[in-house]
């Protein structure tokens, strides 16, 4: 078998409604999935934003994924008034820091990621309850009832162009889940609205790139979504097949199906 792997823009992320601990959590949980194999057996890289590094033009190369630094995370939490006590992390008011992560039952990688986040945050004293739900209930909670605290889900880019992500970044968009169904709730969301519209209404690629780079920076700073990993796409092609040239977008192996042929030896044996 010939193997071929590429990074693709398929990202798994953690969505929070608890902005106070966002950045610290990214320090404490972000990179565990690709280190030492981990859940994805080394076939992933820590993610930093909505674009995979494989998308070389649109990826903002200035952004770097946070390394796994639980001590730094705890320090930042303490600077914000959180403090550990008897193995639990308490906020300024003395409340135990606890939240739930929902994900879709049946997705083993996401459930395992949730378990790893649970373990990592447990080291800081943060109690995490992992709740797999059937997909319909999960989507209902996230997109209709807004009755959840954090969710692990995956986005798949249908397009290399950032305009394909308008359904997420515009504050009025349907999938803008953190401040849903309203006008810009915050100044930075208003800024993203402006930049996304600007990049979509010009034909100058450099200007568009500049606008979308800024969007990626704002997302990294404000962290409405914690991007966890960029998964590799693995394609396996039989040695009997010639002409395979897997790409990074779906269908990775079959995009040139008209050029795939069996080699001479295989044809002769049939």
């Amino acid at each position, binding site marked *: 078998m010939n193997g071929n792997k590429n990074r693709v823009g398929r990202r798994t992320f953690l969505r929070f409604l608890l902005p106070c601990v966002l950045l610290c959590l990214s320090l404490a949980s972000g990179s*565990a999935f690709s*280190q*030492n*194999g*981990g*859940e994805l*057996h080394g076939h992933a890289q820590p993610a930093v934003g909505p674009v995979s590094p494989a998308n070389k033009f649109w990826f903002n190369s200035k952004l770097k994924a946070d390394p796994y630094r639980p001590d730094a995370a705890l320090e930042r939490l303490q600077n914000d008034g959180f403090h550990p006590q008897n193995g639990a992390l308490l906020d300024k008011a003395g409340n135990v820091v*606890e*939240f*739930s992560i*929902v994900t879709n*039952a*049946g*997705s*083993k990688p996401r*459930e*395992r990621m*949730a*378990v*790893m986040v*649970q*373990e990592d945050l447990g080291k800081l004293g943060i*109690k995490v*309850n*992992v*709740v*797999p*739900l*059937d997909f319909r*209930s999960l989507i209902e909670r996230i997109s209709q009832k807004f*009755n*959840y*605290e954090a969710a692990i889900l995956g986005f798949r880019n249908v397009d290399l162009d950032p305009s394909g992500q308008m359904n997420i970044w515009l504050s009025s968009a349907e999938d803008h889940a953190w401040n849903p169904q309203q006008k810009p709730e915050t100044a930075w969301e208003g800024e993203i609205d402006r930049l996304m519209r600007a990049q979509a209404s010009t034909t100058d690629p450099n200007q568009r790139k500049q606008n979308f780079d800024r969007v990626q920076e704002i997302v990294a700073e404000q962290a409405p979504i914690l991007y966890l990993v960029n998964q590799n796409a693995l394609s396996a092609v039989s040695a009997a097949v010639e002409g395979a040239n897997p790409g990074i977008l779906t269908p990775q192996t079959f995009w040139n199906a008209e050029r795939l042929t069996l080699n001479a030896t295989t044809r002769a044996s049939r």
Partner: protein
Amino acid sequence: MLGNRKRPMNAARKLACVVVLAVCAVSLAANWLAPAGYAKQFREAPSAPPSRQHLLGTDEVGRDRFARVLYGTRISLLLAPASALVSTVLAALVGGLAGYLGGIWLRLARGFTDLFLSLPWLFLLITVRAILPLNVSPLVSVLITFLVLGLLGWAASARVLSTSADALRNSDFVLQARASGLHGSRLFLVHVLPNLKPVLYAQFWISIPVFILSEANLGILGLGVAEPLPSWGSLLRELEGLISFREEPWRLVPLLLLMVVMTSFQLLLSNQEASV
């Protein structure tokens, strides 16, 4: 009492009894046998093969599989009887009382039971679980899961009990007791309930493997016991994506354990049913 004859256990049933007791004893000793614990993640050794440190290797996030099997066995084997107890008590209340009261009560109870039995239990369980609060500890979630199983699993037993209680209500000795002046709760507690005991015991024992399998079904779907607690259902999920049994036969241990325990329960139950 009616139906109180007991048959001696044959060798297979004795063996089954020993197996169930041994599995229970080993699972209760998990703290000593598997000090690594079920939740600790050895990130440097995910999906590791068996070794001296990890007798059954590790799972995909590096947790000791032997410890998870022991703790999972403990959860499944201890909480399934608790669910069976809940469902048997409910069945006794609904079926036993309806059968004893007879008439409209019996017809109502049977109609309600039939309605309950016609519900797709798996979807019912999934729905009930989806509306539960999110922020509950894993231990509470385990208790809720098995409590829900118990609360939803009474209907089949209730049918059996209502029929038995109905037969007792029309029996000669109950008629004689009525003629002697016994009525109401005293008649039920002194004459009917003791004669329902063998049926209650049988329903209780029959329910245990049913609840073990129900939890396993939920676990396989990822809707069973909450992480990081293990159960047989969540352990069986590991078999998803297993490419070759030959290369990693140790991953089959939870499945083999489930099969052995379920077979043992069936052997024990055949003895129990024969004694009813």
